[in-house]
């Protein structure tokens, strides 16, 4: 019961500003921030899940704060070249006590600063020790502090299987970050990690979660949870030479075979210098294009083979859907009054929300071009690929279309991440689009 007193450094109470800074500064490059997917109930304590996810604040870099993202320790025994916490680097080190993390979480949560905790850690002493401590914090929060809010727990590669399994009973989501999209790059830049050390626990959790869901369905298990919000992972883009096609093939197999909820991409920022690493930051546009392609894989019915060849990169000039459409002009234009949802979703510039708006509205009347304008559907790109009641309003030939699309893209670059903007819910009370929330 009081075994936490045995952990070194226990002092209880509020974490100091210095410690908080060290432990959050090093955690911020993990880009995952989602708090969606869990419907955990409040069972008398504090907190509950919010299935659609909830952003609590936004920082000047335009990113959302949903979870308290913090490391338990940045005191690492590993030496991943890209990491500011690696052992060979002379940086201030800190390790929080379980108490400090719990109190911080509870006090931030009740003030509504956060939706929950994203707890991660450097490999402190050894993998099992670290995983045990992470598990201790999570159990403490759930069992002693009565916390039912969201917990995302980072898994520690090479920790014992039983610890991973136990953690999954208390966390809403877990993630093992692949970081580098090929085995060679892992060997070079994260020598203590290996493909297996990352993929095996992911696989273990996928199988155990499926078994849990099945038993719950059959009524064999009545209570409890097993990663209700599933697993995610992250890849650094631009620290190693893999092409987008390679990265997205890995992504697709993670979605299909491992049932991951999300793959995050983080464009490389040189926070540490190393002769093996590029000196320049990766272009954010590349990261943006990967996210766009990722959305096409998850919500728009595309397969990676349609978007980009294995050794190729995505087109930087136009978004991946436009690029695909330009290569498949023979499939266009589609008539918006007749095209099935799948076809509408493939029209450049028409997002899921607008596709559903069109479906809803055309049930009443034959839609004309002016109707789409009234419905505030952006037509700058779409008009080259649709007819409205038989009429075409776009440019005549492919070359002209490409030119116009590129121009449209330049105009929009200031508001990048337009796909995320779509997370604003379409308020139609009977629509099912909540599932397309940017957080999912």
């Amino acid at each position, binding site marked *: 019961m009081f075994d936490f007193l045995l952990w070194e450094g226990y002092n209880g109470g509020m974490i100091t500003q210095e410690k908080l800074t060290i432990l959050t500064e090093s955690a911020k490059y993990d880009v995952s921030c989602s708090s969606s997917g869990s419907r955990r109930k409040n069972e008398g304590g504090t907190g509950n899940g919010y299935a659609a996810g909830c952003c609590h604040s936004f920082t000047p870099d335009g*990113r959302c704060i949903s979870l308290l993202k913090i490391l338990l320790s940045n005191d690492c025994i590993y030496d991943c070249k890209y990491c500011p916490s690696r052992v060979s680097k002379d940086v201030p080190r800190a390790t929080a006590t379980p108490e400090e993390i719990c109190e911080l979480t509870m006090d931030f949560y009740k003030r509504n600063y956060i939706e929950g905790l994203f707890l991660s850690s450097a490999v402190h002493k050894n993998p099992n020790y670290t995983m045990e401590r992470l598990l201790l914090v999570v159990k403490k929060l759930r069992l002693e502090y009565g916390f039912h809010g969201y917990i995302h727990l980072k898994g520690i590669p090479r920790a014992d299987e039983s610890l991973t399994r136990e953690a999954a009973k208390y966390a809403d989501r877990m993630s093992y970050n692949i970081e580098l999209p090929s085995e060679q790059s892992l060997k070079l830049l994260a020598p203590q990690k290996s493909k297996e050390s990352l993929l095996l626990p992911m696989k273990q959790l996928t199988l155990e979660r499926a078994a849990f869901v099945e038993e719950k369905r059959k009524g064999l298990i009545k209570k409890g949870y097993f990663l209700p919000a599933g697993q995610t992972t992250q890849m650094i883009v631009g620290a190693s030479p893999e092409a987008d096609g390679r990265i997205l093939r890995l992504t697709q197999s993670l979605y299909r075979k491992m049932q991951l909820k999300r793959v995050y991409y983080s464009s490389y920022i040189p926070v540490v210098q190393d002769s093996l690493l590029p000196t320049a930051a990766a272009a*954010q546009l590349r990261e943006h294009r990967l996210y766009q392609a990722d959305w096409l894989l998850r919500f728009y019915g595309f397969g990676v083979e349609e978007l980009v060849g294995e050794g190729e990169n995505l087109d930087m000039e136009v978004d991946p859907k436009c690029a695909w459409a330009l290569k498949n002009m023979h499939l266009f234009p589609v008539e918006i009054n007749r095209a099935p949802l799948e076809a509408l979703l493939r029209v450049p510039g028409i997002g899921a929300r607008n596709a559903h708006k069109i479906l809803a509205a055309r049930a009443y009347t034959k839609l004309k071009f002016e109707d789409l304008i009234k419905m505030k559907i952006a037509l700058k790109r779409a008009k080259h690929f649709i007819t409205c009641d038989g009429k075409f309003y776009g440019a005549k030939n492919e070359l002209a279309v490409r030119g116009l699309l590129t121009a449209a893209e330049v105009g929009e670059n200031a508001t990048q991440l337009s796909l995320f903007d779509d997370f604003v*819910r379409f308020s139609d009370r009977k629509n099912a689009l909540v599932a397309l929330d940017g957080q999912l």
Partner: protein
Amino acid sequence: MTYFFDGSISGFLTAFLAAYHDEAALVTSRRQQLILGEAPVYIKTDETRAARAKARLLCFDDGCMKDLNLLLRCGDDNSEQIAFSYFKKLAKSGKPVHNMLSDDAVFAAVEKIRRVGLELHRFHGFIRFMETASGALYAPFAPDHDICDLLLPHFRARLPRYPFVLHDITRKKAAVYDGKNAFVAPLEQAEIVLSGNENAWQALFSRYYAAVNIPSRERLKQMRGYLPVRYRRFMTETHGEKK
């Protein structure tokens, strides 16, 4: 003719019946909308007639009262007139119209409903509680729309152990949960004594906020889109930044 009602749902429905055949009707509960020199029709809320109108409208669309509830909470000047046109459309069609998005009246109403819903969703995240000396939580805020009571169920479900007050500064009212019951009450100004640790926790969160930002990636325009400046007034981490 201008039809002036009290802002309530029943008031709206009474006005709706009165104005239904008037092609030039303007329906409002806002004084500033009254046209100078023109005497409005003052609508006296009639619960019986309102109930009848409600029952009839519900036959056409069983979800329409939810729409009305949100539309009347919308703080935009013309929202009641938009609600009027929308309900007229519904009554004329005799079946649900909320998907008829190419119709101006319907699209305008759906947009207003979306805006109220979006603000509600945003404040699930943007509300900032302060801990008072008694342990109760207090959150002042200034929403565009009249949503403070709609926030109650959310916070009550997640913080059942903490009494709390959601104080709509603009409308001078508060949604209160006293640890047992939830209710709405008028509230001009609140006298608050903060708990001993409150300032330290606020400072810690501000430090956290600064630490997770990546300065080399500043994207203020995007930030503004997600977190409009007007909402920052009561947020700890932005130090009450104002427009």
